[in-house]
């Protein structure tokens, strides 16, 4: 591409600007500087010579046009020398194109931003409550009749979101069991209280660690998948298509997912219990010299079965929170692809948060009930 040059000649109260070459948007800012540097105070006449230009693009035309307007504003006479038809046409195009001013994005102050955000959060909370209301009031009635229950979808979801997660749940819990045992083994050794590792692990794993870890893994794995699946279906109008065919998405997509996770979660927690205890047992054996027989014997005597049931009971509740938040976030997806990523992140964060709140409530409740 030929470079464009600007030659400026002064004489008394006259300036001549001679442009040559291809004047395009790459050159404008350079020329703008040169033009801005001109001292126009005593100038009465400016000549713009475009005859040596071989090409003028629309951005450069806007630049020339603005410069002419600027000169007119300063009451300086302007001559435009331009014989080439294409270049005249380009200038004409810009001059005659009426464009409205672009709207300014309104500047918001901090108070307004906080207010709007809070209000949006409040509306979001209300809409989640509305979602739960809808879920319970109109949808639970489907489950009244056995023939309404969509066993196939539920089975499919149990497989997708739980059975396929068994491996990762087991592995994570195994490692957690390992780590917790390892950390406490060191402390216990100091006091020679080696055998109490069984009490400690048994209680913490069965009651808290296994249910929580399972919930976190499932929220990250299956909750986010629910959001992404349903969100994508919303964008491709599949949900609308279902509605027009009389297939209620709540019945086909929402309820099966929630039920599937509620059914599968206790099983996952059980698997997590087993693998975490195995992890702890290995450390107890290697680090503290407690044989598996001794470990299990002690486990049997000191860990009441109620602790196991406390952990398992939490399962369906956590599952309900994870699944309903995941599905709700999927339904909140708007008609753009960004929205899927945003809502998927939100669904995981909110699900984990909700699970922890729920766990805290359980803790208080169980303690006060003496369980």
């Amino acid at each position, binding site marked *: 591409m030929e470079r464009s040059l600007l030659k400026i000649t002064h004489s008394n109260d006259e300036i001549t600007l001679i442009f040559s070459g291809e004047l395009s948007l790459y050159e404008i800012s350079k020329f703008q500087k040169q033009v801005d540097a001109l001292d126009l105070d005593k100038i009465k006449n400016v000549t713009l010579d475009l005859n040596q230009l071989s090409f003028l693009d629309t951005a450069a035309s806007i630049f020339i046009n603005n410069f002419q307007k600027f000169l007119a504003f300063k009451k300086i006479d302007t001559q435009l020398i331009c014989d080439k038809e294409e270049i005249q046409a380009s200038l004409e195009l810009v001059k005659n194109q009426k464009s409205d001013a672009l709207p300014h994005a309104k500047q918001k102050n901090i108070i307004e931003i906080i207010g709007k955000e809070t209000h949006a959060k409040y509306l979001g909370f209300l809409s989640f409550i509305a979602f739960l209301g809808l879920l319970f009031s109109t949808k639970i009635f489907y489950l009244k009749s056995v023939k309404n229950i969509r066993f196939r979808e539920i089975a499919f979801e149990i497989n997708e979101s739980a059975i396929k997660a068994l491996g990762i749940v087991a592995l994570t819990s195994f490692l957690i069991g390992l780590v917790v045992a390892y950390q406490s083994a060191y402390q216990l050794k100091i006091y020679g209280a080696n055998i109490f590792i069984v009490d400690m692990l048994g209680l913490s794993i069965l009651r808290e660690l296994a249910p929580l870890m399972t919930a976190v893994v499932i929220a990250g794995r299956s909750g986010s998948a629910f959001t992404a699946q349903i969100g994508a279906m919303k964008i491709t109008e599949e949900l609308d298509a279902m509605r027009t065919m009389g*297939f209620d998405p709540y019945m086909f997509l929402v309820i099966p997912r929630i039920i599937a996770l509620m059914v599968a979660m206790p099983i996952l927690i059980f698997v997590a219990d087993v693998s975490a205890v195995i992890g702890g047992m290995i450390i107890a054996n290697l680090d503290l010299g407690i044989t598996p027989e001794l470990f299990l014997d002690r486990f049997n005597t000191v860990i009441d079965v109620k602790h196991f049931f406390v952990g398992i009971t939490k399962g369906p509740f956590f599952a309900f929170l994870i699944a309903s938040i995941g599905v709700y976030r999927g339904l909140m997806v708007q008609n753009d692809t960004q929205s899927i990523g945003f809502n998927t992140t939100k669904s995981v964060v909110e699900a984990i948060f909700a699970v922890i709140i729920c766990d805290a409530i359980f803790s208080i409740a169980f303690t006060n009930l003496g369980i």
Partner: protein
Amino acid sequence: MSIIIKVTDVTTMFEDKMVHDRISLSINKGEIYGLLGPSGCGKTTLLREMVMLQKYNSGCIEILGNNLNYIQYEKAQKLRREWGVLFQAGALFSSLNIAQNIALPLKEYTDLSDKMISEIVKFKINLVGLKSRDALLYPSQISGGMKKKAALARALSMDPKLLFLDEPTSGLDPISARDFDNLILRLRSLLGLSIVIVSHDLKSIYDTLDRVAIIDNKKIVYEGTLDNIASANSHFIKTFFK
């Protein structure tokens, strides 16, 4: 001729933006009726309101004798089986192949045997001009034109009386678009359908539509046959049907 869809004084707002301002129109049985107008004038919105995907702010829509303002759940479910809807992008269920997509309503709503269902599916696939060998392809494996045909076959699977099509020929090459027009005309005469079409395709508008309503600037600026369209006073009509 009996009226099957009657829209009366419908007003639609998105937050504070008005899209429809008291619009009224009526569609007769057996008609191919077009909803036309510039982009963003609310054609899709009106279509969505007719098929109960969206609420309007005031006015009323009556379809096959049901007033949508007061319709009850069971009635609404029944009504949904009497129409087919073709969405702009097809909206086939991406987890199901073409045959399963078409079979889904039949499986859910009837007690037909699997053999009978597969007969019906085969018939519908060929009716819309797809090949039987395409039946096992998934939506991600077929072209835009095939998607529209497959979606049409799904919309027709329950033998509806009423068909809603949102821009059926947009995004198709001219030859497929003309094929689609012929298909629509053929289906109307074969199955006695009433069809509501949103379209921008001038050729297909002239070839297929019996009557049209033109929405411009929130109002219906013209309703009637294409013959008298020049009589209407609207910038859109003057430029579009010049």
